[in-house]
């Protein structure tokens, strides 16, 4: 079973040379730490920066240079700043190659719910609806079950949707799952996790074809 860093580490292997990547808050943010150093990748943040670097050294922070999580950041050589309309032109226009974000629920047909729980204070969708409606390549990073132990991979989402039919791949603490026209298809097991562990923790139908390899991290 993986921890959050393990999930991030597995997802980092999906990041290919030459990719522009948008990382959501939470587990996705950790992905940047595990991307291979011998490939060229640029991180985009929807508030208006391309070419993000690491956090600044103490005392070097600039209130005018933040990411979408409102954290102070730095930029790398080749970086650029731009306005919000241009930022979403990059996203909507599919110039960003990979979007990694968290979710509360994902359904068999790739619907995602990650912005609202009825009855609770709603903070808003931010850029998530634009990202999931636009990106060709969306990976969800999440725990396989919620705090109550209920599956987050469902036949149908119960929560208000963020986007429909958009998720292509899910990486959880238990498994790597592809979302296909036939529904969830199990691809890889987390270390020490059995196929039946995964099937039991999955509420939606999950297709298991042949023997399922353990993830390489």
């Amino acid at each position, binding site marked *: 079973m993986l921890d959050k860093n393990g999930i991030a580490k597995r997802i980092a292997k999906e990041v290919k040379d030459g990719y522009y990547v948008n990382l959501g808050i939470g587990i996705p943010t950790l992905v940047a730490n595990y991307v291979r150093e011998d490939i060229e990748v640029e991180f985009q943040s929807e508030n208006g920066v391309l070419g993000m670097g690491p956090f600044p*050294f*103490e005392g070097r922070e600039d209130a005018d240079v*933040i990411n979408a999580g409102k954290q102070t950041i730095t930029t790398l050589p080749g970086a650029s700043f731009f306005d919000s309309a241009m930022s979403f032109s990059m996203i*909507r226009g599919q110039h960003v190659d990979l979007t990694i974000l968290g979710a509360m629920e994902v359904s068999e047909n790739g619907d995602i719910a990650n912005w609202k729980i009825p009855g609770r204070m709603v903070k808003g*969708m931010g*850029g998530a*609806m634009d990202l999931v409606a636009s990106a060709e390549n969306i990976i969800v990073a999440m725990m396989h079950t919620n705090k109550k132990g209920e599956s987050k991979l469902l036949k149908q989402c119960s929560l208000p949707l963020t986007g*429909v*039919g958009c998720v292509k791949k899910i990486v959880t603490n238990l498994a790597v799952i592809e979302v296909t026209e036939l529904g969830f298809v199990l691809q890889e097991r987390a270390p020490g996790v059995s196929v039946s562990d995964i099937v039991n923790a999955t509420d939606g139908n999950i297709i298991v074809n042949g023997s399922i390899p353990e993830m390489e991290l």
Partner: protein
Amino acid sequence: MINKKVDNVIDALRGVTGGMTMIFGGFGLSGIPENAIAKLVDLEVSELTCISNNAGVDDFGLGLLLQKKQIKKMISSYVGENDEFERQMLSGELDVELIPQGTLAERCRAAQSGFPAIYTPAGYGTEVAEGKETREFDGKMYVLEHAFKADFGFVKAWKGDAAGNLIFKGTARNFNPNMCGAAKITVAEVEELVPVGSLDPNQIHIPGIFIQRIFQGDFYEKRIEQLTVRQKN
């Protein structure tokens, strides 16, 4: 050169009244029109409809207007980190319309650019699209979203000149350029008002034609919402 310079924030906000719809630049607390917001608090105008990506925090940004209950409705994409906002929203005092961030940007740009509406894929199949026209183009579904109509727009730039030309800095740029010219009157406040002719015409982010009034802010706190640093080894 058409002169847009006003002497101070009082002159910049002339004509502001209760019940108006206002657009505010900024993302989180970055690039917000601090001086205009402070003056709106002073003026005690109320029943405002505010279009802004965020709603500030309890004691800064648009949170200051919320504390004084001057806002009737917020149109935003993300409104976390604000207890008073939450209280007013749950009690029904505050009307809140949440819209996708890219849709917010583009509804501003549509107003700026004379487009009545745009088709965006964002929100299709979600409650954001409820009651809205949807349409297929090339096998993909889109939602029709309308240009904003606002009375005042308040933006904040790094440098500007009396002609109204603006240059923004870093990610404090965000929605500000897209909001210039999106309201009947756009008020720009700048950290530094420089002499006309000193900005490179090639490097101006927003030409003065989109701006009706410009002034140099008295002071910018530029509060950091999430100070995140790394240690030197």
